C-alpha cells in the first residue's frame, strides 16, 4: 500500500512536469506555425503603416535601450551600496523595498508615469515609455548586483585593501570584476523581461504607425501594437500580430538563453 501510494504520487508529480512542458511546447508550436506562416523578411523593411514591423521593433529597442542606460548604472550603484556600504536597518529596508518593487504591478507603474509625465507634458511620449521601463528594470538590476556581489569572497576585498587601495577602487577594480559574469547575466535577463513588457507602455508611449526618433511624441512599440492588432477583426491584422509575437518571443528567448549560456560557460 505504501509503495503503491508512493508510485502514484511520483507518477502524478512527473505528470505535472509534463503538463508544464506541454504548455511551453503548445505555446511555442502555435507561435511557430502561426508566426512563420505570416512571417516575411519585408516585415523588417516596412513600417506598420505599410504592413511591416520595422518601426515597431526599432521603437521597442530604443525605449528598452534608454531604460537600460538609465536603469543599469543606477541599479548597479545601488546594489553596490546595499552590499558594500550599507549596514544595518536602512540598507535592509531598501533591499526589501526593492524586492517589493520588483513584484509591483506593472500597470500601476504605467499609471504613475502617466500621472507624473504624460499629464504634465500633455501627451504620450517615447520618453515616458522609457521612464516606465527604467522603473521596472531598476529593482531587478539592484537585486542581481546585490546577490552577485555577495558571492565574491571576502578575502579578495581584504587583499585589495591590504595593498592600500581605497574602498571604491577595490569595489570597481576587484569586486565588480569578480562578479562581472553574474551581473551581466542578470542584466540580460532583466532586459529580456522589459523588452516584452506591454502594460507600462499602454498609456505612456502608446504606439505609432510611423517611424520616428522623436522621443517627445507617441512612440512605436511592438508589444502595444500586438495588443491593438490582435484585437482587430481583420484576419490580416491578426496575422501580423502573430508574426510580431513570433519575432518578439524569439528575441526574448534568445536574450534569455544567451544570459544563461554565459553563466554556464563560466561555471565549467
Amino acid at each position, binding site marked *: 500500500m*505504501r509503495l503503491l*501510494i*508512493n508510485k502514484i*504520487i*511520483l507518477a502524478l*508529480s*512527473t*505528470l505535472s*512536469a509534463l503538463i*508544464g*512542458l506541454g*504548455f*511551453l511546447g*503548445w505555446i511555442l508550436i*502555435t*507561435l511557430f506555425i502561426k508566426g512563420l506562416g505570416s512571417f516575411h523578411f519585408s516585415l523588417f523593411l516596412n513600417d506598420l503603416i505599410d504592413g511591416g514591423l520595422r518601426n515597431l521593433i526599432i521603437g521597442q529597442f530604443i525605449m528598452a535601450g534608454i531604460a537600460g542606460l538609465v536603469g543599469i548604472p*543606477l541599479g548597479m*550603484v*545601488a546594489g553596490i*551600496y546595499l552590499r558594500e*556600504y*550599507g549596514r544595518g536597518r536602512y*540598507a535592509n529596508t*531598501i533591499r*526589501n*523595498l526593492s524586492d*517589493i*518593487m520588483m*513584484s*509591483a*504591478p*506593472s*500597470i*500601476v*507603474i*504605467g*499609471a*504613475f508615469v*502617466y*500621472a*507624473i509625465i504624460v499629464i504634465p507634458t500633455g501627451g504620450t511620449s517615447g520618453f515616458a515609455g522609457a521612464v516606465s521601463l527604467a522603473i521596472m528594470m*531598476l529593482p531587478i538590476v*539592484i537585486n542581481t548586483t546585490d*546577490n552577485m556581489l555577495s558571492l565574491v569572497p571576502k578575502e579578495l576585498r581584504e587583499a585589495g585593501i591590504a595593498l592600500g587601495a*581605497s*574602498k*571604491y577602487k577595490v*569595489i570597481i577594480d576587484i569586486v565588480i570584476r569578480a562578479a562581472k559574469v553574474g551581473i551581466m547575466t542578470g542584466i540580460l*535577463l532583466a532586459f529580456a523581461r522589459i523588452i*516584452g513588457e*506591454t*502594460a507600462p507602455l*499602454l498609456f505612456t508611449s502608446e504606439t505609432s504607425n510611423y517611424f520616428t526618433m522623436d522621443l517627445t511624441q507617441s512612440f512605436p512599440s511592438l*508589444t502595444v501594437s*500586438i*495588443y491593438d492588432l*490582435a484585437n482587430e477583426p481583420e484576419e490580416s491584422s491578426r496575422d501580423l500580430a502573430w508574426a510580431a509575437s513570433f519575432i518578439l*518571443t524569439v528575441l*526574448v528567448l534568445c536574450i*534569455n538563453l544567451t544570459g544563461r549560456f554565459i553563466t554556464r560557460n563560466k561555471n565549467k
Partner: protein
Amino acid sequence: MEKIFQKISLSSASLVFVILIGIFITLFNASKPAIDEFGFNFITDARWNEEVPLDDAKKAPASVEINLDDMDFASNDEILLDDDMLLDESGDDDILFDEEDSQTKTVYGGLIPIVGTLLTTAIALAFALPIAMGIAVFLAEIAPKNISHPVGIAIELLAAIPSIIFGMWGLYYFAPIVADLVGGYQVSLLTAGLVLGIMILPFMAAITRDSMNTTPDVLKESAYAMGATKFEVIKDIIFPYSKVGIIGSIILALGRALGETMAVAFLIGSIFSLPQAINDPTISIPVAMANNFGEASGLGESSLFYLALILFVISFGVISFAKLYFLKGAK
C-alpha cells in the same frame, strides 16, 4: 573620490524608496477627487459609469452581497454597460436634464473589478498550486540531474515568455477548448484564471524547488535508512522543512497574479458586470485601467487611479507580508 562614490551609491539606493513613496503619493493625489466623492463605498459599489438621480448617488445599492465561495451574487445584474466613456466628460459636475428627472450624476464603483481581480487570482492559484508542487518535487527529488537541469530551464523559459503572448495564445487556442469542455463564454473568469495560472506556474515551481533543495541531505538519508518511501520523505521531511519557503513562494505568486494585465486583458471579456457563474465574462482592476485609461477624464480617470491605488496597496501588502514573514531567511 571615495566620499563622492559613497554618496552616489547611497542616493541611488534611496531612489527606490523615493520612487515607491512617489508612486503612493501620486496615486493618492490623482485619486483624491474620487476618494472625496465616493469614499470607502467605492469598494462595495457595483455601478461603474452609471447615471443615477442625484439623491440616490450617495448610497450604494443595498443588496450586493459577495459570496466568494459559491459564486452566487445576489441581484444587481442589471448593470448598464456604457462603453462610451466620452459620456462622462463632464466629470463630477451634475448634469442638468430638461426632462422630468431633475438631476443626475455619474457614479463610479470599484466592486466589479475588485471582485474580478480576486476571483481570477483565486482560480489561478487553485489551478497552479498542485501542478507547481508536482513540478518542484519532480525537479528536486525525482528526476536525475541530467533530466532535471534541462527541464528546469524549460520551465523557467515558460516564465520568460511575454504576457501578451500568453494572452493571444489563450484567446485563440486555449479558451475555445476550455469553453468546449465547460460551456459558457470563451472569454470568462475561468479562462482568464487558468491562463493566469499557467503564467505563475513556473515562478511558483522555481522558488518551491529552491527551498526544497535547502533540505539537508542528512535528514533525507536518515529517513530513507528507516525504510521510508520517497513520498514519505517528501511529505514528512522535505515539506515540513521547507514549508516556510513554499508558503512564501505561493504568496509571491499571488502578488504577481493580482497585478497581471495583458494576459487577463485578452481573456476576461472586459465588461463591467458581476459574474453569475465561473464562465461569465467580467473585468479586473488592471484590465479596467488598460482599456479605459486613455479615454477617461475627470471623475472617471480619478476613479481609475483609485483602483490603481487599491491594487498597489493590496499587492504591496501581500508581497511585504510574504517577504517579512516567510522569506526572511531566503537567499
